């Protein structure tokens, strides 16, 4: 094990419980007080294909999966062929001996063993958990307890199956990687869980969505929790409906959020623009996957940054921010909900499949979430678009004796349509004042995460790539300064001033280097090199640390 990181990789066909086996492994590690990072790699299909789950664990905070695994369990030949080179030095590879023979590893007759039980292939995952349990030195009792908790269907058969696999490994894997216990058990959640919970903590009332990977699990999570939290959660007929319903809800004072990926966001942009002129507080989660168009649905990329920054026609304030970690996703979602209500404008929480769908152990300060509160009307003649010093008009919601008009046409202060040159310019100025107001506010907040290092080079990254970079630096024992802007619009240039004329490297998942361009254009930074990955896969810390060594030396 290098640097105390143990990695378990399990692969097979969709429908064989691959992802579940990964989650169970993650729970076993966390129940031992260890920290965990789990990434699921799956294809856009229901049954068959090749899926794998990779779970890395350490006693310290771990922020990436490692693609070199100490234990690789393959349910079929395709998985074995795919992962034959993903084994760490001295690692173990398990193959399905009913499907192939000549592999330098340990053969387990998954097919013929599972054939003895009514659930058949559905049990492969249990077998993987048995192999892991043996390898990390768990007793049979410990293993069976985990299986009972995690596989409540057909417990007896599962335990019988697990025991038989466990026994097969007595002389090969058993206790090969005994894992030390850590300090405490932590919850494991995905980025999308964190976004959902952050929204709830921040005051969310209504959520609208249309299924689109990798944002769908926000819709699913919130739909499950709707009753518990008194939310309205609606799967509408299209992203056009989604954003417009959310805007209608916001009109009544409901804190509303929507979520989608690039294609759905393209449909929403019309509504984002509507939110701009009507000054509707609305938070949109944009979880990126490789584009253009349908692209690669279940993989990761960061190529919608420019799109998010300029989403919607016309001049208006868009607040765009991107969380670096699963914990940050919780805080930032609540914070963004608060910001869009403070400044009455659309906000985009920009993230990626890698954050949305990866799971990790968290140490969350639940109370440290912002609570969205708009500035409210206090009396007198109500004007929805009252021109104030900071451009923020106090809000009022129906039912009310006062008339409240929100208008997609250019309008006067009372919200009545206008074509008057003076009023058009005045309302542009009014809305534009909010940009300065947001900047004044953000100057008092943590907008850029900076980890100071001794090496004179600075590494810039954003979104979940931050986690990949962090792990690569730890792995490679490198210590440049790491800079992760949380806010991308407005970009906190006041925090980036000090990096002008310094040696800067950018890491991002976009072929054209959109983030590097943003830093050059807005912050005036010189960028020496951009490390890019755009094959849909997140960076691997070992590979990335090698690239860092090349550019840092």
């Amino acid at each position, binding site marked *: 094990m290098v640097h105390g990181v143990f990695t378990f990789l399990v692969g097979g066909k969709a429908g064989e419980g691959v992802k579940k086996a990964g989650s169970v492994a993650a*729970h076993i590690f*966390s*129940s031992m007080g260890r920290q965990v990072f789990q990434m699921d790699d799956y294809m856009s299909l229901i049954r068959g294909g090749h899926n794998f789950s990779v779970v890395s664990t350490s006693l310290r905070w771990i922020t990436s999966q490692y693609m070199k695994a100490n234990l690789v369990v393959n349910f079929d030949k395709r998985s074995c062929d795919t992962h034959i080179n993903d084994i760490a030095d001295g690692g173990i590879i398990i193959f399905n001996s009913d499907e192939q023979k000549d592999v330098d590893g340990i053969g387990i007759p998954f097919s013929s063993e599972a054939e003895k039980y009514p659930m058949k292939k559905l049990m492969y995952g249990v077998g993987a958990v048995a192999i892991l349990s043996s390898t990390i030195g768990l007793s049979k009792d410990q293993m069976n307890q985990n299986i009972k908790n995690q596989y409540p269907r057909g417990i007896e058969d599962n335990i019988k199956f697990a025991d038989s696999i466990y026994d097969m490994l007595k002389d090969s894997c058993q206790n090969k990687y005994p894992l030390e216990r850590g300090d405490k058990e*932590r*919850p*494991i*959640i995905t980025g999308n869980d964190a976004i959902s*919970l952050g929204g*709830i*903590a921040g005051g969310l*009332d*209504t959520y*609208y969505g249309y299924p689109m990977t990798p944002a769908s699990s926000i819709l699913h999570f919130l739909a499950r929790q*709707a009753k*518990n*939290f*008194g*939310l*309205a959660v*609606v799967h*509408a*007929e*299209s992203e*056009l*409906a989604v954003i*417009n*319903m*959310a*805007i*209608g*809800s*916001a*009109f*009544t*004072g*409901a804190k*509303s959020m929507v979520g989608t990926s690039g294609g759905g966001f393209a449909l929403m942009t019309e*509504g984002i623009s*509507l939110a701009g002129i*009507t000054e509707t507080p609305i938070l949109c989660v944009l979880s990126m996957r490789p584009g253009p168009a349908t692209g690669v649905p279940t993989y990761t990329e960061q190529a919608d940054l420019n799109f998010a920054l300029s989403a919607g026609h016309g001049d208006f304030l868009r607040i765009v921010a991107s969380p670096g970690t699963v914990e940050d996703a919780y805080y930032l979602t609540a914070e963004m909900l608060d910001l869009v209500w403070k400044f009455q404008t659309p906000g985009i929480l920009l993230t990626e499949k890698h954050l949305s769908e990866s799971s990790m152990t*968290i140490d969350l300060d*639940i109370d440290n*979430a912002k*609570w969205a509160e708009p500035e409210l009307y206090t009396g007198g003649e109500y004007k929805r678009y009252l021109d104030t010093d900071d451009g923020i008009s106090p809000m009022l*919601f*129906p*039912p*009310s*004796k006062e*008339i*409240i*008009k*929100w*208008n*997609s*046409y250019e*309008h006067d202060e009372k*919200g*009545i*349509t206008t074509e008057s040159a003076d009023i058009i310019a005045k309302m542009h100025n009014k809305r534009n004042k909010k940009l300065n107001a947001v900047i004044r506010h953000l100057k008092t907040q943590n907008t850029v995460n900076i980890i100071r290092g001794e090496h004179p080079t600075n590494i810039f990254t954003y979104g979940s790539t931050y986690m990949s970079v962090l792990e690569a630096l730890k792995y490679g024992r490198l210590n440049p300064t790491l800079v992760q802007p949380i806010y991308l619009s407005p970009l906190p240039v006041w925090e980036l001033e000090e990096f002008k004329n310094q040696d800067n490297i950018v890491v991002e998942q976009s072929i054209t280097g959109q983030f590097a361009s943003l830093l050059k254009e807005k912050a005036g930074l010189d960028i020496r090199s951009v490390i890019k990955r755009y094959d849909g896969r997140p960076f691997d810390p070992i590979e990335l640390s090698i690239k860092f060594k090349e550019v840092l030396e």
Partner: protein
Amino acid sequence: MDNLKTNAEITWCTGCGNFGIFTALRNAIPKLEAKGIERNDIVITAGIGCHAKIFDYLNLSGLYGLHGRNSSNAEGMKIANPDLKVITFSGDGNGLGEGLAHTIFAAKRNQDITMILHNNSVYALTTGQYSPLTEKGWKGPSTPGGSFETPFNAISLMLEVGATFIARTFAGEISHLTEILVQAIEHKGFSFIEVLQPAVPYHSWSEYRERVEYLEKEPKTYFEANKVAKEKNKFTIGVFYRTTKPIYHSELYGDHNPVTNRLSRDIRLDKIRKILGSKQ
């Protein structure tokens, strides 16, 4: 009709059918108030087009949305605060062209909102192009050789997709229009009112007056309503169908109101603690 008019300059053409709808709605609201519906609870949304100008003229709260998206705005209002009475104005191009899916789904869900479809059978504000309800042969700027698409029947469509109050009326019959508006707004569920209204640069009042006829009697069954909607000409006015079905927001969350019964921050945080605890 007191206070129901804003000071906005009215820019409909002289003689526009929209004036009839404007008048009837201002007649209907005091009648609704007399039945216990609070004016402050009424909110409106509109799409874009000549129909939508009513948003500026009516002294009621609401949201002037995008072309075709007004019924989604209305659904969002109702879902967030079901105590509100939501009326959405639409044109035939707006609600049956660009916004067709939203109109269909609002009806399918039986959202407790009222849609008033100003049917002038033309894209009036954009200079007279054919609309989803324009008769075949219409020579507009986008179809100089005459439109060759067959219009569909909005009443039949609404019957198919699940609206629970469906009527057609005419901007030239103010008392009929007013009465239908009152019934539609009172109705629990999705109400669809198609209002025939001439856009005078394109159609004359006489074209309508010659063809408008009253439905002899309200159909009693769904089957009969379908038959009547198909058999009668598209100038037949009256209530085609009304029924009672579960309404969307009650199915979604029962008697809850997400805005007025919002859980406090402390309760939310405690529940989050429980969820994270149980995840271990």
